[in-house]
């Protein structure tokens, strides 16, 4: 029986992009349904009644929510190829730690860079650069966070690189200047078809944010 896989999506969402990369890595065929967050579909409200957010993965009618949980699920179900998490429990705990670190830090700093001004924005910029430098340290000399091939942490982080242009433009700074290794890593990731298919372009993200700002 063919698997039925549906993704409730929002194109600019870094969280949704993670799921798309994971599905592409595993070669899973899926249907992508775009959500309008000002007018959420009955399906979204039914499948994620607790948080009412995207992304939601619906596998054979059953929903899974929260992007990192979805990526782990995909890795476990379609375990025939491209393992994302390491098999060793300690390495696994480290991968989970860094993905959690990314979740705790980047979105919030990024949001404040986009929406705040002056001191608050400066503080957020410093925090973001500190976070990215720490991640560069963790990457070290490896090709990917996952080692020789992309892994869980690469999948968790690379979608944010589509947002870098927006952060830089709103905050008037350069991420590449502060974190050249990370930019090199991002380019390397984008050479993978799964990533190039799943990520939307930086200009599209910026235009999405400009529209949001216009509405307010």
């Amino acid at each position: 029986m063919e698997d039925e896989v549906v993704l409730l999506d929002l194109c600019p969402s870094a969280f949704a992009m993670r799921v798309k990369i994971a599905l592409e890595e595993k070669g899973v065929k899926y249907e992508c349904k775009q959500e309008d967050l000002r007018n959420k579909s009955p399906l979204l409200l039914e499948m994620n009644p607790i948080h009412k957010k995207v992304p939601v993965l619906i596998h054979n009618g059953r929903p899974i929510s929260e992007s990192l949980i979805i990526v782990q699920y995909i890795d476990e179900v379609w375990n025939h190829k491209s393992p994302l998490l390491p098999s060793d429990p300690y390495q696994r705990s480290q991968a989970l730690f860094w993905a959690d670190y990314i979740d705790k830090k980047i979105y919030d700093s990024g949001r404040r860079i986009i929406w705040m001004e002056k001191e608050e924005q400066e503080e957020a910029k410093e925090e973001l650069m500190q976070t990215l430098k720490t991640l560069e340290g963790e990457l070290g000399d490896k090709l990917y966070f996952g080692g020789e091939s992309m892994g869980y942490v690469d999948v968790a982080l690379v979608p944010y690189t589509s947002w870098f242009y927006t952060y830089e433009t709103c905050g008037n700074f350069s991420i590449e200047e502060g974190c050249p290794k990370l930019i090199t890593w991002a380019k390397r990731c984008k050479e993978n078809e799964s990533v190039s298919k799943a990520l939307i372009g930086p200009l599209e993200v910026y235009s999405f944010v400009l529209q949001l700002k216009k509405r307010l």
Partner: protein
Amino acid sequence: MAEEVVLLDFWPSPFGMRVRIALAEKGIQYEYKEEDLRNKSDLLLKMNPIHKKIPVLIHKGKPVCESLIQVQYIDEVWHGKSPLLPSDPYQRANARFWADFVDKKIYDLGRKIWTTKGEEQAAAKKEFIESLKLLEGELGDKTYFGGDNLGYVDVVLVPFYNWFYVYEKCGNFTIEEECPKLIAWAKRCLQKESVAKSLPDEEKVYGFVLQLKKAFGIE
């Protein structure tokens, strides 16, 4: 060997309690080290340089941080006894979802209840009860969130039970009135030795909170 496993912890921390319960469920001997959070040890700063927080689990000299990650690690390494996460991927995703829900809601809302007053406190109480009711719904008629035995979600949630007394005293409300099924579940958990020996007395926790409030000038 006890020195193989070390836990850097702080006795009232619900996050630390999760790890204590998991280690007890698996029957693992470990060395418990109490941290003074106003004077963090060199070991803590070395083992968790990123967040500088407890709990930190140190296994054969290597640190694992973040309580949910620690509980999963313990479950995977000592997988022979008392499995905490289900083996089915969908059930696992569901357990992780609810653990994440507890992490997103209970600690922060609980904190608001004992640190604020007036409208802010009232709003926190309302959302707190709503969150507990959603958890009650997920529990349903099961003995534990894990089914017939303690599972991941039980381990993640039950440490907040001995903070309920703090929230109730500071917020002037009764959780049992609103969420009787959840209180019944918590009492069932406390009948397990792994839980009973990992949770400090609620009066002691309340005493600690009163000291904190005085120190920070919170009424």
